[in-house]
Every structure is written in C-alpha cells, then in structure tokens.
C-alpha cells in the first residue's frame, strides 16, 4: 500500500483500502498522490456528482443517508464525501457526519469518507476534487458531497458538483436572508427539510416568491430550481428529491451545460493549483519562510508595500 502505481491499479479495481489510502495522500499533499492520480485520471468522468449543502443541523447527513438508500435500491454504487470544518487553530477536527449515515454501513458498494476542510476558511479542501476523482475511478456510479453551508463552502461546491441541492429548514428566517444574499444562484434544487415542523409553507412561499423574481426575465430553457419538501428523518420526499436531481441531470445533458460546468471546474482547479504550487515554491522551505518573515517585517515597518513584497518573493 505504498507504491503509487499499485495503489492506482487497485483503485481502478475498486479496492476500498487503496481508494482510502489515495484520498489520504491527496489530503496530505503527499507526492505519491500525484503519480497515482495521473494514472487514474483518464478513467474518470462517468460518475454523477451531486452536492448537498445548507446550514449546520438542517439535516444534510440524514438526507444523504436516505439518498444513498434510494440509489442502492436501484443498484447504483455510491460514494459519499462528507466535509466538516477543521479548527483553524489546531488543524484538528471532529468529523461526525457518519453518525447519521448508518443505513448502509456494511454495504460494500457504499464508500463514505469524512474530510476536514483543512485550513481553507469556510471553504473546501483542495483534495475534495481528488477524492471525487478517486471514487469515480473506483467505479462509483454516484458521488454525493455533503458540505457545511457557511460562506465559501457553498460557493466552492458548485465548482465540484454537477447538481447542487441547498437544504433549508422552516423557522430560520435568517436562512432565507443568506439565501437571498447570493447563495440562491448556487442551488439547482431546493430541499425544504424538516417539513414535519411548523413554518414549512412559509419557507416554501418565500423561496417561491424569490424564484419568481429571479426568473422574471429568464430564458424559457433556463433551469428553474424545483422546491422539494422533505422529512429526512423518515424518508418522506426523498423520491421527489431524487427525481429533481434526475431532472437537472437531464437538463445539463440536453443543453450542453454539463460540459460547460466541467470546463469551469477544470479552469478553477488549475488556477487554484497554480496558487498552491507557487505558494509552496516560495514558502515551502525553511529559507523561504525566513525570507517571507523578513518581508513581513518590512511591510509592518512601512518600508515596503505588500504588493512589492509579493513581487520580490516571486522574483526568485
């Protein structure tokens, strides 16, 4: 389990241990990851990639558990990537999404992986793209990504998934406010979960009136996100949610939007990897760190602007 070539071959054979190890290498930015990923990359691209995002406690993990169940009933194999925040202070994390994902916990055709966000403020760890590819390469038909819906995480997931469901819950007026503040655009499907609680109708009505405004001048063939009421706890509405995912999938395929999304994803990923590698090149050694700290002092002492410091650091 140490040789990148062997690990890559085992992943392509569907070996879960190898897939798990390769995800760890990618998370750790271990050099062995790149060789193995090189090998599996040509074999990827067939999995459907679905995102589930929304505020903490809205029932995302519970919903994912039910989605997995539904896909398994149709005999699709499933990978799940569940992201929780890492502590910005210690880098540690308690990843607890598995608690709600126990229905298929011994099914060999379901692979669940928990990931910490590892230092990207509110955003997703860069390794998430790699983890998706690895699950795709090991043959999973569907890959579901759960991310906490706070700030950057919600925006990042669009760049990772083909279809994104935004989970809202009744009674959180503020939620709708955040949704209005720009998150709206990322949802391909709205799931109003906890539909057993009071206030569902109001939440649905607010979403609807917002959509009406947003789509006033939209093209006829634009995708208008459906609103699905769910009770993840007992599985109500999950079939409708699956149908909504399918509807959006069909839209992506017939309009050519799928390719467009994948193109954007590739562009975005290349750019962020360039940033990562430049940072690594400049700061990755002890000498680099010392130079960097010197420039920080110069900026603090008003001798240099941050921009010139950045320029000089990049010079060599």
């Amino acid at each position: 389990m140490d040789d990148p070539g062997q690990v890559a071959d085992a992943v392509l054979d569907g070996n879960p241990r190898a897939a798990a190890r390769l995800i760890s290498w990618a998370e750790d930015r271990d050099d062995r990851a790149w060789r193995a990923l090189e090998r599996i990359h040509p074999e990827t691209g067939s999995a459907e990639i679905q995102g589930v995002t929304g505020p903490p406690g809205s029932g995302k993990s519970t919903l994912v558990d039910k989605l997995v169940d539904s896909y398994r009933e149709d005999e699709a194999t499933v990978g799940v990537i569940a992201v929780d925040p890492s502590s910005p202070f210690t880098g540690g994390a308690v990843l607890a999404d598995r608690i709600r994902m126990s229905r298929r916990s011994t099914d060999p055709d379901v692979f669940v992986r928990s990931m910490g966000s590892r230092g990207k403020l509110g955003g997703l760890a860069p390794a998430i793209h790699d983890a998706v590819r690895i699950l795709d390469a090991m043959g999973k038909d569907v890959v579901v990504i759960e991310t906490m819906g706070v700030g950057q995480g919600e925006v990042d997931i669009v760049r990772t998934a083909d279809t994104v469901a935004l989970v809202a819950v009744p009674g959180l007026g503020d939620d709708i406010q955040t949704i209005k503040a720009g998150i709206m655009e990322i949802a391909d499907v709205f799931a109003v979960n906890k539909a057993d609680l009071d206030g569902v109708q109001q939440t649905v009505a607010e979403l609807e009136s917002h959509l009406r405004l947003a789509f006033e001048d939209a093209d006829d063939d634009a995708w208008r996100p459906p609103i699905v009421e769910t009770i993840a706890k007992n599985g109500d509405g999950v079939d409708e949610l699956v149908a909504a995912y399918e509807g959006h999938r069909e839209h992506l395929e017939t309009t050519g939007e799928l390719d467009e999304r994948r193109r954007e994803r590739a562009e975005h990923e290349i750019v962020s990897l360039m940033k990562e590698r430049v940072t690594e090149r400049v700061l990755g050694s002890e000498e680099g760190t010392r130079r960097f700290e010197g420039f920080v002092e110069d900026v603090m002492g008003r001798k240099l602007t941050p921009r010139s410091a950045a320029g000089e650091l990049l010079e060599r």
Partner: protein
Amino acid sequence: MSEDKIRVLVAKPGLDGHDRGAKVIARALRDAGMEVIYTGLRQSPEEIAQAALQEDVDVVALSCLSGAHMALFPRVVEHLEDRQAGDITVFGGGTIPDDDIEELEEQGIEDVFGPGTNTKRIIERIREVAA
C-alpha cells in the same frame, strides 16, 4: 505543503447508551490537531472495521461501558484483519477490569485505557503508533 495528519476513529461498539466519555476523548484529540471520525452509538464490530478502512485511520479507539468488551473488541480486530487492514492499531477504553486487560492485549488490542486515564497519555500513545 505536505503533512501527515493523524486520523483516528472513535467508536462505541455494543449497546450502552452513554457517549460522554467518547466525546471528551474526541475533542481532546481534535485539540491535539488530529482528525477524529466519530461514528456514534451502537456500532457493530463489522461497521467499525468498514468505517476504519474507508476513513484510512491510523488508530481505532474503542469505548465500551456495557461490560461486553471481551466479546466486542477482539471482533473489531478480526474484521480489520479480514479486510487486510490489520495494520490499523486498535486501542480500548471504558470500564474494563484490570483482569481483562492482559487477555485483550493478547487478542490484538494495542493498549487498554481504564477510566480516568489522562488524555495526554492517550494522545502520546496515538502519536507513537501513528509515527
């Protein structure tokens, strides 16, 4: 900038319904910079092994207060071995009588920590085996 992050699965096999102790450990390990996967109550040994493998953890930390540790802990080790994952270290904790410790260690539980074990010691041991 590569780093080898330590990952630990904290799991509660068996039927007891108390996970305060497990949660305290989970938070202590997080504060020590580790990634802790917490799977909740009432996990079967097979579920625990499957989770450990998918999560590629260095260590599985089992906690059991029901008295069924002699039946449950070694079965986690067996299920890991069945999956060619016998290299994952298993620690045990909870209400475990001194008399049982030796036998558990013979059956592949690396260390057994009784109630009131200092979490610093647990963290230290995890760092040692993960190195």
